[in-house]
């Protein structure tokens, strides 16, 4: 997953502009190379944003803001750390970061999977709407703020105000939680949750025992939850 084959199309960002790279990746939806290797990312912004094809992409190094934003279908592996807004509004596909991710990773994401091998900073999964996120390290404050759907798995610790004003996202944390946000409470595991967590850990390639995690979610006191609409989540 996310590992391009040896025949990958190589784009060197010390020679090629971001606009040219992204145009070529967008054009690949209509045919052309499906495996890509992007070198010398140098912390540049908006690398591989707006892809709409099942491409396999490796990025060799640290990336800047809004990397892989709005991704559809592509599997992307970042061999480094990511700046603000990684995989913002991701629709589907997989994004794996070997290092850390800065603020607002996978913000507003609607689908797909985002894996951070290191730590994610503040506001991880803010307003997430269906994306699944697995963070092997810690997440910063205000993670899963107003989170609506999907799951956030944190193998380390969570910062202040976790899940503040949360709707129906499932939160799983193995370490400590500095403080739960408004209307976010600890909840029991049901069979479904154990299966979901087990599946996400396996999909992310994380060796962790689901029994070590605690689950958090909405107390449903802050928003107008109606059981008749449960299917919508």
């Amino acid at each position, binding site marked *: 997953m996310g590992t391009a084959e040896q025949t990958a199309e190589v784009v060197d960002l010390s020679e090629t502009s971001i606009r040219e790279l992204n145009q070529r990746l967008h054009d690949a939806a209509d045919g052309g190379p499906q495996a890509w290797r992007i070198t010398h990312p*140098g*912390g540049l912004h908006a690398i591989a944003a707006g892809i709409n094809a099942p491409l396999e992409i490796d990025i060799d190094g*640290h990336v800047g803001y809004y990397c892989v934003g709005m991704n559809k279908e592509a599997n992307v592996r970042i061999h480094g750390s990511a700046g603000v807004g990684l995989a913002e509004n991701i629709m589907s596909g997989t994004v794996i970061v070997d290092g850390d991710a800065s603020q607002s990773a996978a913000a507003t994401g609607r689908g797909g999977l985002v894996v951070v091998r290191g730590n994610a900073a503040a506001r991880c999964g803010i307003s997430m709407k269906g994306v699944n996120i697995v963070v092997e390290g810690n997440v910063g404050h205000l993670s899963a703020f107003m989170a609506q759907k999907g799951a956030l798995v944190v193998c380390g610790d969570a910062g202040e105000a976790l899940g503040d004003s949360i709707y129906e996202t499932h939160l799983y944390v193995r370490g400590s939680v500095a403080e739960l946000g408004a209307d976010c409470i600890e909840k029991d595991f049901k069979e479904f949750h154990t299966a979901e967590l087990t599946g996400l850990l396996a999909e992310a390639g994380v060796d962790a025992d689901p029994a070590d995690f605690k689950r958090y979610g909405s107390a449903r006191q802050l928003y107008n939850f109606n059981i008749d609409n449960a299917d919508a989540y």
Partner: protein
Amino acid sequence: MCGIAGLFSKSSSFEERLGDHLSDMLIQMADRGPDSAGVAFYRNPAPSGSSKLTLFSPEEGYDWDPIASELSSAFGGSNGPEIRASHAVIVVQTDADDAGRWVIDNHPELRLMSAGQTIEIYKEMGDPREFVERFGLRELSATHALGHTRMATESIVTTEHSHPFSTGLDLCLVHNGSLCNHNRLREQLRREGITIQTDNDSEVAAAYLTWKMREGASLTEALESGLDDLDGFFTFAVGTADGFAVLRDPIACKPAVMSESDDWVAMASEYRAIAVLPGAEDARVWEPDPGQVYIWEKEKV
């Protein structure tokens, strides 16, 4: 939005090229702050018993030789002026406080940018890329340096409103963000006898640190109490004679990234300013936690 870059050398060979590398970092941050740019270089310590002033004249082609002679007559000898664009550095045989006061009293047409043993501050309006070339920053060696590119929000664009702001002898501050309570705080600090020269919010943060340290606080203590007293968004970088400190506001409104290699420690608003440093690809990179003071100093690295 503004851009910050800080660079600290861990080897003497890197010191010789520090100006070149900080210039590269500053240019990467030009998009974040095209209004003006400024740097603080820590270099060429003044001999014991002497001190170093950086002066700014808004007058093009200002003749610096008379003031250098006057300083020699007043204090018995001076070196310089070493002129860089609109600025000049003069080494004076007296302590920095006396020398600085003498300039303010006798040459009101000039602006004292910095005073101390090692600090030199240069700042000017306009594109950061042109600033780097105009001031010949690439040729400067230094133990460490801070840089700032400004996109003005809270006050007008002039040389005086540019960063870094000097916070005391060999001390300076650069700021990305905005403060909400700077007007009231400015009045309070003026009542405490702290000199504040502009209506800029960041200068109030610099003045606040000056006041706290005058009252006996360490730099770390002064920054930590700033978390309670400075209302607003900030990533601060503070230069000292020995190194630099970094602090982000507790909710992390403004970005910061840090990195360390065998040769250097760097901080910047964005990683792309660090990516241009030699060995960046193998350096450790991390995001500083909000509300936590980070300090690098010569003897501790």
